[in-house]
């Protein structure tokens, strides 16, 4: 990995962390754990279209772990980690099929997979399906939030890489 790439990834991770910490200050929209805008995912979606798979993986892993430490909520690490990994597992292959023009669609699918990962982790930790009724609510919120972050990432990406518009 070249120094340039390393710096670029580090700055993106740092920016994502700042957004993540600022977003924690927002009041909860619904009293349901896991329902949030996920503004930091703008950087994840952006990175998926901009960098190689292993680089995105490292960036997201760093952000999730540091984010959990910064907000001193290590018990939430399991949910965000499984969500983020499932989200990446879906988005990385999908970004080859979905062109930049439909990036928001890729972002929505990523958000849905993120919610799926969260619910699976919660079910594994609770060892009970009691959290399952929250799944459709998370999915609905995830679709809207995913579309929003996707559109944001698309705007940034268009400015950065005008050549990608033609794809």
């Amino acid at each position, binding site marked *: 990995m070249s120094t340039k790439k390393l710096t670029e990834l580090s700055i993106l991770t740092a920016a994502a962390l700042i957004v993540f910490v600022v977003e924690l200050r927002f009041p909860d929209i619904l009293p349901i754990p896991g329902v949030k805008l996920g503004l930091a995912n703008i950087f994840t979606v952006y990175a998926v279209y901009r960098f190689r798979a292993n680089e995105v993986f490292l960036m997201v892993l760093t952000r999730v772990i540091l984010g959990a430490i910064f907000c001193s909520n290590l018990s939430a690490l399991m949910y965000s980690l499984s969500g983020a990994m499932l989200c990446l597992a879906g988005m990385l292959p999908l970004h080859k099929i979905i062109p930049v023009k*439909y990036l928001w669609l890729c972002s929505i699918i990523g958000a849905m997979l993120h919610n799926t990962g969260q619910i699976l982790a919660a079910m594994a930790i609770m060892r009970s399906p009691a959290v399952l*009724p929250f799944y*459709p*609510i998370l999915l*609905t919120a995830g679709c809207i939030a995913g579309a929003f972050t996707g559109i944001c990432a698309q705007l940034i990406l268009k400015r950065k890489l005008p050549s990608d518009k033609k794809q």
Partner: protein
Amino acid sequence: MTKGVKICLAAVGLIFAISLVLTIKFLSPTGRDASKEDVWVEIEQDNKVLYRLNLADEPDRVFRVSAPDGGYNEIKISDGKICVSDADCPDHTCVKNGWLRYDYLPIICLPHKLVVRFCEGGDSE
């Protein structure tokens, strides 16, 4: 628009529609009213039922449920309603949730593995 994008779009639309319908269904408040009928609730921790209470008979009270890791959730019963009034978990989602008011959505405290939900008529306390 390529075929792959179309399939993804259709799948996303379908999942969104289904989850929207379920969300509206789950977020409709319960029709149970403790002043008119028996309303049973269950307090579960770590998959074990700790209490089965009939809110119609319960006096107003506050009690604590201690978690295996040493934490606690304070359960409050008042006027035939139940909520988690205090807890020492890191996220406090269970407290912010307020009164138990949905048939399908229980109050959940993930860190303490606590579930408070409506259940069907009980035979034993």
